[in-house]
């Protein structure tokens, strides 16, 4: 009985694992960071007041204040007093290459490889289904993410993640899509680093083009292989950097 219970309960162990105690304020911080990273909020713009922010996100003003002060402490927003005062997104908000390097240092090769494997499995699966389901409109959207309109680090990183998200959108699997969103959150700012390398930037355009071409040709196997190459290039760059 105990034998059976323990062998059957590997999944249950996860159920009883302690919950991540990321507080509400921390979630608000994450949302705002994400909004700036994706260009929804921009450097220098005024942020809503505590009260407005609280109302918009459905949290208490105390939580909103806590989130804003945490962002302030990390230098992500600045606050000025007076008639035209308020909180503003810092001019040099993100991307923080330093922070990304720090994140890379905290990981082991094993963790990077494992993350890469997971990332590859999910994106390759999406690409394979996308080759079957893409229509002309979707292909046109996918091709807007080959190369960013602006040559900034943030824009390069954005096309990197948006291109893969678009593959998930075309594939139309809610589970794979959610998994990809979660994985990209786990990767955090790491994906910024390869795009500091001009050779990688250009190579990535070629690799994304190869994926888009394979999907347009409705070639499932080729879409899978080219997507695998794209993700592997990113992970190999990180492993290379990690070993320096």
């Amino acid at each position, binding site marked *: 009985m105990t034998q059976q219970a323990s062998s059957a309960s590997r999944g249950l162990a996860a159920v009883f694992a302690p919950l991540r105690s990321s507080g509400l304020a921390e979630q608000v911080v994450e949302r705002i960071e994400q909004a700036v990273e994706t260009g*929804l*909020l921009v450097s220098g713009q005024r942020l*809503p007041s505590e009260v*407005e922010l609280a109302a*918009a996100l459905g949290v208490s003003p105390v939580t909103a204040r806590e989130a804003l002060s945490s962002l302030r402490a990390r230098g992500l927003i600045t606050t000025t007093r007076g008639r035209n005062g308020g909180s503003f997104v810092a001019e040099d908000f993100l991307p923080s290459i330093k922070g990304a390097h720090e994140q890379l240092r905290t990981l082991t090769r094993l963790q990077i490889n494992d993350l890469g494997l997971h990332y590859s499995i999910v994106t390759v699966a999406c690409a394979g289904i996308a080759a079957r389901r893409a229509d002309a409109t979707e292909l046109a959207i996918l091709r807007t993410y080959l190369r960013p309109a602006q040559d900034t680090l943030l824009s390069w990183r954005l096309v990197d993640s948006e291109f893969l998200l678009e593959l998930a959108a075309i594939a139309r699997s809610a589970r794979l*899509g959610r998994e990809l969103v979660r994985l990209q959150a786990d990767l955090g700012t790491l994906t910024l680093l390869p795009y500091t390398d001009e050779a990688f930037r250009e190579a990535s355009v070629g690799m994304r083009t190869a994926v888009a071409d394979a999907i347009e040709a409705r070639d499932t196997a080729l879409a899978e292989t080219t997507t695998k190459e794209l993700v592997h290039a990113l992970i190999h760059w990180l492993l290379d950097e990690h070993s320096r």
Partner: protein
Amino acid sequence: MAAEQIEVPAPVRQVQSLIAGIEGTLEKWAQDLGRDLSGMRGIVPGAAIDGLVQPAVKGLLAKDSPELAGAGFIANSGLVGPDRSYIAWWQGPQLERVDALANFSPSSMERYLKAEWFRIPVESGIPHATGPYIDFLCTDDYVVTFTHPVRREGSVEVAGIVGTDVAVRTLEQNLIRGLRQLGPAVSLVSAEGRVVVSSALSLEPGDLIALDDAGLSYPVGRRFSIVSATED
């Protein structure tokens, strides 16, 4: 002509009335909201929009047949300010507010113009249905989004859109039995030929089929049809 018309089978009428019901609900809501907005001159503050939209959303999401995943209003440029949009959209039984940070974004219009469910009704002035697609902006779920333009009384300009998301799984729960009664390979498809629900095991929601090969074909709502076809 009328005498030659083949009688529409009951399962088809059931599908038609479910979809038409959603479209009719949106049409009425768009009229009501247009009238309410007419009472407000010039620039309308976001809080006033919330006050008009949220009670309506609450009512809609409380209905259980079919269950709606979310609903709301998105302003066209000009209503809350030049070149700005405003989103008042809630989802789920807890009425969770969606995408609220976008209301502070200088690029909110651009954000929504990228989305078919906003762009088409705003630009064409006619109601639209988008999908099935994965809604990464709101529900992260597989949905069909119905949207309807809103105009202030006596105005031709589109002030914004009202819309609602219906999960594809909800449509399957409500419609699969009827489709099976019609035949082993009968599908509800979008105007683009994309399967929403099908009685054929080989067809999943999202698959494309060639509409030309279709045998039977009945219009469903404004943008869907029931067809019998198997291959893409």
